[in-house]
């Protein structure tokens, strides 16, 4: 696997910026008020942006999870 190390570094930086934005906009009161499994999934999603893994944790379909994350927990999708 031939990797462009400079591009990789830039994406690591971008993911960190995206994480900060998700942390900033998330409704933490809503997240903390959720049943444990959903809370863990939402927190994981804020930290990683991994909606598929988070949906599995929450035992939900991917789009259902993302919709709850956006509409209820106010976690934006960030590129």
């Amino acid at each position, binding site marked *: *696997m*031939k*990797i*462009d*190390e400079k*591009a*990789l570094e*830039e*994406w*690591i930086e*971008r*993911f960190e*910026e*995206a994480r900060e*934005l998700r942390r900033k*906009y998330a409704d933490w009161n809503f997240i903390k008020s959720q049943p444990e499994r959903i809370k863990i999934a939402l927190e994981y999603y804020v930290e*990683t*942006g*991994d*909606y*598929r893994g988070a949906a599995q944790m929450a035992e939900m*379909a*991917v*789009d*259902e999870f*993302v*919709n709850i994350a*956006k*509409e209820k927990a*106010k976690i*934006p*999708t*960030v*590129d």
Partner: protein
Amino acid sequence: MIAITDTSFLIDWVKYTKRDLIFKLFELIYIPESVFNEVRSETTLLWIAEGLENNKMAIFPEISELRNEALRLVLETRRLPIRSVDFPEAYCVVVGKVQNYVVLTENGGALALVNYYDEYKEVKVMRALEVLIELYKRGFIQEIKGEVKDYSRQTNHLFSNRDLRKYGLI
């Protein structure tokens, strides 16, 4: 142009009131089986059903050699210190390369992959931001800054300042 879309793009794009404008850019949008199978929300399913009925969308079958290559990408990227690519997105990227289709995605793992992985750098990837800009360039959107703001508001999708600056939108 023909595109192939992943779940992340569909989830947001379907919330956009002008979502059907996308068919001005793409004569056909493929949805891989793995993506189709994970969609549950009624709004998204309704839009897909309309697209399938009108022959503007079609399901892209899972082909074993493409599937194997996608799985290789999943495994390779899991070794890196960055968000890896999941199978449905990897499959879109592989199909995009082999068939020369545009890959529609908002998935960070897939977006990063086509940037840092030399073998896949020629794959054309578009996020909603690039789709909106292309619609603007072709005259289907009158005012791009306002439209990007509307899209963000309607979909709760934030575009990074880095990207907005790159396209002269801030």
